[in-house]
């Protein structure tokens, strides 16, 4: 797609503006999933509760199962950062293998259910010249182990060494003991090129098999 300088500038400025979004620096993803939201309380009180919670939970075990908690506004802790370095290494290897594959469709080793999305991937590749394709590579920004078979990964696709799709969210899943890039991760990236993956076949749904 041709981009005018003003469009390029707008794209960069929106990214900068979104970077300053929040209270949510990139790696500061809340480690809890609020499944039922508590009624709104005054924010000062919430801040005081948060501080107290941090004090109480400091040093506690990171994985806490509150499955049997019957309180209506329950909060479930689902994970913490970088506890398993060997898993993290395997995940990084899978993501780097996928992003740096040459040719780019040689991903069978790294991507979950790769055969079902190969055609979509090749349609994406067809949008580029082979010289252009050779300039794409990638790097892993962070890996966050969620549980024994899932991890959240952030990665950047580079073109000619410069970020093209920066800090993208992705997912790794462990299948038959091997960490792979999830099918959804590849398909999400392909949507940037207007390409939609075929639906999952029922036999390939799920992870940790």
């Amino acid at each position: 797609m041709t981009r005018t300088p003003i469009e390029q500038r707008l794209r960069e400025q929106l990214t900068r503006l979104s970077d300053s979004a929040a209270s949510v620096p990139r790696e500061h993803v809340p480690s809890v999933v609020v499944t039922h939201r508590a009624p709104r309380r005054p924010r000062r009180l919430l801040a005081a509760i948060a501080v107290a919670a941090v004090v109480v939970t400091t040093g506690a075990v990171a994985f806490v199962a509150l499955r049997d908690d019957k309180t209506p506004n329950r909060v479930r802790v689902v994970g913490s950062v970088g506890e398993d370095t060997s898993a993290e290494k395997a995940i990084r290897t899978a993501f780097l293998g996928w992003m740096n594959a040459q040719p780019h469709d040689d991903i069978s080793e790294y991507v979950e259910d790769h055969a079902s999305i190969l055609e979509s991937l090749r349609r994406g590749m067809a949008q580029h010249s082979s010289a252009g394709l050779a300039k794409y590579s990638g790097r892993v920004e962070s890996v966050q182990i969620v549980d024994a078979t899932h991890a959240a990964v952030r990665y950047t696709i580079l073109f000619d060494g410069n970020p093209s799709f920066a800090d993208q969210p992705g997912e790794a899943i462990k299948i038959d003991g091997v960490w792979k890039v999830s099918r959804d991760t590849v398909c999400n990236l392909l949507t940037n090129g207007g390409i939609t993956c075929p639906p999952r076949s029922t036999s390939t749904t799920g992870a940790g098999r």
Partner: protein
Amino acid sequence: MDRSETSDECEDARFAVLYRTQFPVLMRVAFLMTGSNETAEDVVQDTFIRCRSRLGDLEHPPSYLRAAVINECRSVHRRSRRRRVDDQVVNDELPADLVDLRDALGRLPWRQRAAIVLRYFVDVPDREIAEFLACRPSTVRSLIRRGVANLREVLE
């Protein structure tokens, strides 16, 4: 552990991954749409909570969540039009040029803002933006052209 418990845990794990991977990007989209971190966080959290039961049945949950977040931003936008402008949370840490951009985005008509964010931040093709805004791709291109023209002053 019975089969339904295993299935629930699998769903929980998938939701957790979806939450972790999508929260930051949805937060950014919501921030661009609302101009406020606090509102953006409320929008994204509420969207996850509201959509949770449906996500397992969807072919592409991230797209669904993105659309739901932008729709929720529209609802917030409608409600906030009744409020005073100085109710908005001001982020003093933003550099001046980004404050100008945020404010200029906030002044755009809602459809122009959505089209600009979807095209230039999320990289959504015009055809999909058109589906989302329930209009023709040519209308999307027109919205984007006018939106860019309205932002030109703060971009130059």
